[in-house]
């Protein structure tokens, strides 16, 4: 027994390292992977409904196993690298995209702190006090994935796609940063947990600063390269954009990263503007800690589902912007609006002394 106890103590010491970081990383990575595969399925289903088609319905019950069929198809395909490609960069690009997509989630909380035995466990991998800046830093690295993919492929379509995307992302990162500034001013902190806690009751930032909410959501669409802002891969003009020359698992890497980025963008919108895991006035119901926590985590998931549906809904309803329209929208509308939002929030804080 003594020996088993020793092994168990060792395992427990490793598992509980840094507020159970290992377990949380494992959980988050798997949740993202499964969500991504079913997000692709739902994207195809919803697009079919909007276009009055049936959509995938062959593999499994109503096509429910379609994501696995897709993954196996991509895995078994031949990996083609163009002759003129810069091979190290060509291979590195999808890995950067995946790295950014998965590591951003480390600072976004899905629920309030819970008690397991004697330990208080935060439902976030790393509770760092400048979490929002960490997310911004990682998204700015994400641009490299597309720029490198565009340059290293040795193809003019890829290059044009890569250049377009770097211009687009830099332009929209500016208004994204200024929208976040409004939220940070309200919460007086850069920690995602504190930002969520500052939106108790109906003090959701989406209601207090609607302009910032709109600019952030639009910037999030542009940052994730989703329609109506998917200029980097505009098929009619650029073939496949930056991933024209990618095939097999490297292409799947970009594909995965795009959907994982959608999940992150939704989680960011929820954390910053929609009150995170909070349900307004749930504490007045006296439901007990366990029930409340479960309800709050489900509330986060429901908000997430609604936002992801919104992302897909917009993609199949709104046509793509032209490149010059995109740029003038970014600099002449979004940027001044987000600056206006900062001033507006400052005035609100001054008047109500929040």
């Amino acid at each position, binding site marked *: 027994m003594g020996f088993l106890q020793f092994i168990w103590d060792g395992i427990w010491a490793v598992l509980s390292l840094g507020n159970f970081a290992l377990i949380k990383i494992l959980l988050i990575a798997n949740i993202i992977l499964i969500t991504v595969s079913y997000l692709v399925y739902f994207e195809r289903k919803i697009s079919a409904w909007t276009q009055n088609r049936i959509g995938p319905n062959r593999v499994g019950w109503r096509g429910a196993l379609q994501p696995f069929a897709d993954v196996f198809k991509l895995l078994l395909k031949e990996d083609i690298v163009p002759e003129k490609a810069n091979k190290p960069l060509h291979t590195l690009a999808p890995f950067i995209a995946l790295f950014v997509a998965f590591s951003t989630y480390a600072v976004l909380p899905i629920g309030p702190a819970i008690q397991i035995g004697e330990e208080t466990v935060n439902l976030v991998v790393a509770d760092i006090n*400048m979490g929002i800046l960490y997310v*911004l830093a990682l998204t*700015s*690295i994400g641009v490299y994935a597309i720029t490198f993919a*565009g340059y290293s492929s040795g193809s003019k379509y890829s290059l044009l796609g890569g*250049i377009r995307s770097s211009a687009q992302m830099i332009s929209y990162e500016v208004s994204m940063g200024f929208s976040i500034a409004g939220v940070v001013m309200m919460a007086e902190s850069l920690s995602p947990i504190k930002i969520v806690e500052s939106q108790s009751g109906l003090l959701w930032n989406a209601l207090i600063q609607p302009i910032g909410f709109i600019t952030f959501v639009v910037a999030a669409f542009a940052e994730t390269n989703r329609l109506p802002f998917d200029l980097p891969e505009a098929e009619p003009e650029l073939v496949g954009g930056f991933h024209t020359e990618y095939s097999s698992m490297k292409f799947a890497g970009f594909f995965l990263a795009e959907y994982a980025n959608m999940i992150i963008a939704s989680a960011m919108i929820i954390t910053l503007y929609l009150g995170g895991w909070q349900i307004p006035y749930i504490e007045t119901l006296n439901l007990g800690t366990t029930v409340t926590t479960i309800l709050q985590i489900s509330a986060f998931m429901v908000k997430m589902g609604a936002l992801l549906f919104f992302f897909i809904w917009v993609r199949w309803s709104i046509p793509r912007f032209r490149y010059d329209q995109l740029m003038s929208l970014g600099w002449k509308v979004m940027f001044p609006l987000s600056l206006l939002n900062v001033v507006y929030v400052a005035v609100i804080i001054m008047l109500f002394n929040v």
Partner: protein
Amino acid sequence: MNLELILFLILTLVAAFSSVMVITRKNPILSAVYLILNFFALAGIYLLLNAQFLSVVQVIVYAGAIMILFLFVIMLINTENEASILADKKPIKVFAIFIAVLVFAQIAYLIFYSNPAELSNGTIENLIKAGQIESIGRELYTTYILPFLIAGYLLLVATIGAIILAKKKFE
């Protein structure tokens, strides 16, 4: 060897290796890529020194914004005959060596004759606090408000100048 020392060794080796690669690569894109790697290693070193804000800003501003613009420009211009441009221009080389020696002397002076730890009253708590965003914000808006505003105006002037120059070319 503790974890901090191991991380420090890895990061410094990466930083030194990448900075050598930056100046020896013929392909400017590869140079830029190694410079980005160098910035990341530097950001890691800042983190080890408890300068969290500086580290994140290093990634956002240098790695995220400035280097993207560099890559953007390099990709758009033709860089194939770059080697021949620099080959027979002696004054440029002499000037470059002069600047390099000057900067090296400055850094050597800073390393040998100043003690940055003394500036923040020495104690470890003060040093940790100095790297946090709250204290940086407070210092910027109280003690250093004048240089901060002047830097802001300089940037504004530069932005307006760039717009005017770009407009002239297209009209």
